[in-house]
């Protein structure tokens, strides 16, 4: 095995915190190396150092045995590429332009022509087995396709080591499979891949080696083939964190009255005649492949969009948009936290109390009592924070998600529509969110979760509705739902 990227004895401190203590990591050519650890364990810091975005206090970076300086330029020149969680894509340009963003090919007279770019991009996309139209504008791509695009770009820039940061956070199973097959192709071409993920099943499936970080130190590494998921979890978190249904689901629920009812609801071509009831006192999970219409159903249920035909009854015949639904007590957590859920540069207080504004009672706003109320509700959800008046950008994904939940608890919402509530959230926060949702259901709230994560579904659901092509493909009892059966139903077999 040939070591492609080597980090030796890396140390890094930030004011007030030690981020990395004597961490070493070796990624081998033609192998996938999983970098594991909960949020705050130091993964991001480590990849920032590997890509030159951060200077370590001590340590060495070697690429192909040669020592490199810690600057973005030299890391890039040495062939280290990072695929960030935030896509680095020029949305208004074509796929071809994006593939060749770094270095457009020059043709005759040294001019860059659209045709030349498209032809070259097509060749490069084919090389990694990414089936994309070079002429399509980038904004028409799905998240998964954007990832393939970025991967193609990295490979074609003669990358030796590609670092992928949580690439599957917002992908669905079929897309993950597609991504994995491309990653394997990349790996087999002799590139070292460093793969960061919260999903241990993906790690078991894809990775060859692993390194586990905890609190800035390396606690374990080895071969994936020689380790079990359970062992990895205990390496990551020290003591046991439960993700089993028995520990989260306290037993059969007694469904109460209907909170939201969809009757033959349609929305364009995305949702076709869906009838569905969400009851109080139960956790209903709606799932399905990407594009199956579940995302639109979530928005219908929250009142954020109106059905093109059919009816959506939210709480006793109540109608009339997202605002009225909010006032009637329907809380909504959107799938894309950063784009649709949070005001990233505003304080935690403002984010936690955002829904209060829509409720409209006394018009006065008192900053002091606002901070107190926000602190209270954040404490109820055990949000880990140092100052409620700091921008929410600084919180971890799990804590940001809890703040959005807090927003709805604060205004007393008793119908919760949650679209991917644990996307990009670490495992301890996940299990806390699951417990919270079960608690709400037990207290008589209606909880509707839209999820594509099988383990999550099996863990929390009283009832599972599977969608396919805008219709309901079937329903499963939460107790008997297994990953296998849900998957079969999604595929329609």
């Amino acid at each position, binding site marked *: 095995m040939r070591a492609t990227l080597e980090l030796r004895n890396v140390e890094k401190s*930030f004011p007030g*915190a030690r981020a990395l203590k004597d961490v070493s990591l070796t990624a081998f050519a033609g192998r996938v190396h999983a970098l594991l650890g909960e949020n705050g364990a130091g993964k*991001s810091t480590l990849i920032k150092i590997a890509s030159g975005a951060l200077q370590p206090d001590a340590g060495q970076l070697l690429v192909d045995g040669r020592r490199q300086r810690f600057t973005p330029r030299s890391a890039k020149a040495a062939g280290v590429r990072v695929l960030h969680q935030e896509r680095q894509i020029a949305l208004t340009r074509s796929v071809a332009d994006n593939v060749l963003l770094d270095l457009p090919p020059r043709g005759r007279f040294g001019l860059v022509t659209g045709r030349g770019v498209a032809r070259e991009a097509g060749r490069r996309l084919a090389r990694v087995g990414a089936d994309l139209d070079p002429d399509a504008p980038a904004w028409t791509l799905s998240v998964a396709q954007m990832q393939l695009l970025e991967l193609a770009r990295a490979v074609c820039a003669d990358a030796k080591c590609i670092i992928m940061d949580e690439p599957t956070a917002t992908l669905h199973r079929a897309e993950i499979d597609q991504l994995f097959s491309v990653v394997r192709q990349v790996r087999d071409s002799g590139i070292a891949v460093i793969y960061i993920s919260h999903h241990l099943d993906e790690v078991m499936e894809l990775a060859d080696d692993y390194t586990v970080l905890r609190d800035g130190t390396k606690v374990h590494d080895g071969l994936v083939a020689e380790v079990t998921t359970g062992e990895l979890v205990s390496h990551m978190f020290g003591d046991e964190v439960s993700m089993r249904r028995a520990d989260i689901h306290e037993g059969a629920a007694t469904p109460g009255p209907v909170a939201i009812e969809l009757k033959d609801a349609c929305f364009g071509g995305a949702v076709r005649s869906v009838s569905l009831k969400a009851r109080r006192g139960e956790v209903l999970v709606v799932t399905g492949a990407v594009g199956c219409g579940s995302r639109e159903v979530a928005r219908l249920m929250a009142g*954020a969009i109106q059905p093109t035909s059919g009816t959506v009854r939210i709480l006793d015949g109540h109608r009339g948009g*997202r*605002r009225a*639904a*909010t*006032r009637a007590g329907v809380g*909504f957590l*959107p799938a894309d936290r950063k*784009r*649709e*859920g*949070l*005001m*990233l*540069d*505003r*304080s935690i207080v*403002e984010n936690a*109390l*955002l*829904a209060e*504004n*829509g*409720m*409209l009672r006394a*018009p*006065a*706003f*008192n*900053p*002091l009592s606002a*901070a*107190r109320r926000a*602190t209270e509700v*954040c*404490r109820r959800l*055990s*949000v*880990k*924070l*140092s*100052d*409620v*008046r*700091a*921008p929410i*950008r*600084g*919180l*971890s994904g799990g804590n940001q998600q809890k703040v959005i939940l807090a*927003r709805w608890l604060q205004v007393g919402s008793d119908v919760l529509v949650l679209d991917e509530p644990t996307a990009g959230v670490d495992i*301890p926060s996940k*299990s*806390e969110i699951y*417990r*919270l949702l079960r*608690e709400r259901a037990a207290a008589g709230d209606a909880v509707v979760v839209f999820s594509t994560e099988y383990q999550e579904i099996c863990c929390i659901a009283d009832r599972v509705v599977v969608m396919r092509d805008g219709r309901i493909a079937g329903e499963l009892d939460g107790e008997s739902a297994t990953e296998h059966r849900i998957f079969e139903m999604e595929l329609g077999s």
Partner: protein
Amino acid sequence: MSATQTQVVLPTTARRKWLTPAVREHLQVYLPLLVIVIALSALASSRNGAFLSTMNLERMLVASSVLGILAVGQTFLLVGGQLDLSVGSLVSLGSVLTAKLVAGEVPDVVIVLVAVLVGAASGALWGLLVSLLRVPPFILTLGGLAVFASIALTVAKSTPIPLPTGLDWLQTGSFLGLRTPTLIWLLCVIVGGVLLHFTRFGRNVFALGANEEAAFLSGIATTRTKIAIFVLNGTLAGLAAVVITGRVGAGDPRAGIGLELVVIAAIVLGGASLAGGRGSILGSLLGVLVLGVVTSSLTFLSVPDSYDQFVFGAILIAAVSVTAGADFRRRRKVQRRA
């Protein structure tokens, strides 16, 4: 959630520390502005003692009042992530209209009312177009700027309409040593400040600018809020038109030329972001004062007129670099900690 309490909550009560992140952010913006104001005043008064005389201070405030009133309205727009470039021409048009009404011997109350209503109507138009057609306000109101300018010139036949009498209260009235235009400005600042920073409506404006989608999904009436801030801005532009007409003593079809950009410059100086979600009435007030002091001190330092624009531009670049730089560093710190 009591079974596995793995996380420690560190609540900080609201009263314990006065230097909150928000306060710090404001100070980072305000302090450089105060330094500029003090330095320039010191320089100007060392050359000419009359700079700090009551009369000059009074004149400075009156001269800044139109800009100040406009800045209050536009601050709401910038904080809400919107923009109205048509205010410059709207002031010109309002001024011409006011002069016509004065010539027609319409009572002053009605004149003010008409000017304000015309402004509000213009604001409502932009608000509706922006939110219903989802047109970017920049281009839309740029069009408005041109159209209003042309209407003003046409109505006034391209020459200022003199006001022999009428609107005297704007020239002569004063209270507590403050002249009427200054008082109107002050009133706008106080009402605007309370509205933006201490009401639900104000919070909605911030939410709109910080993340419109998140605000909508959280049940906030984003469309209504958007239209409301355009109307508010138009209303204040109408008021500013009356003030400038009374102060100058003529209905000038060129009264507001360039004002739209100066207003935005003042607000951005005061810490607002063109991307929305940031800014304050107090900051905008300081921004306007800085520009007022700069203009006046240049006169006192007998700097030729041709340098005015240069100094104005240089201060804008310097101040924005300082605040933007501070903002960038702060953000990077937060992100690194994450």
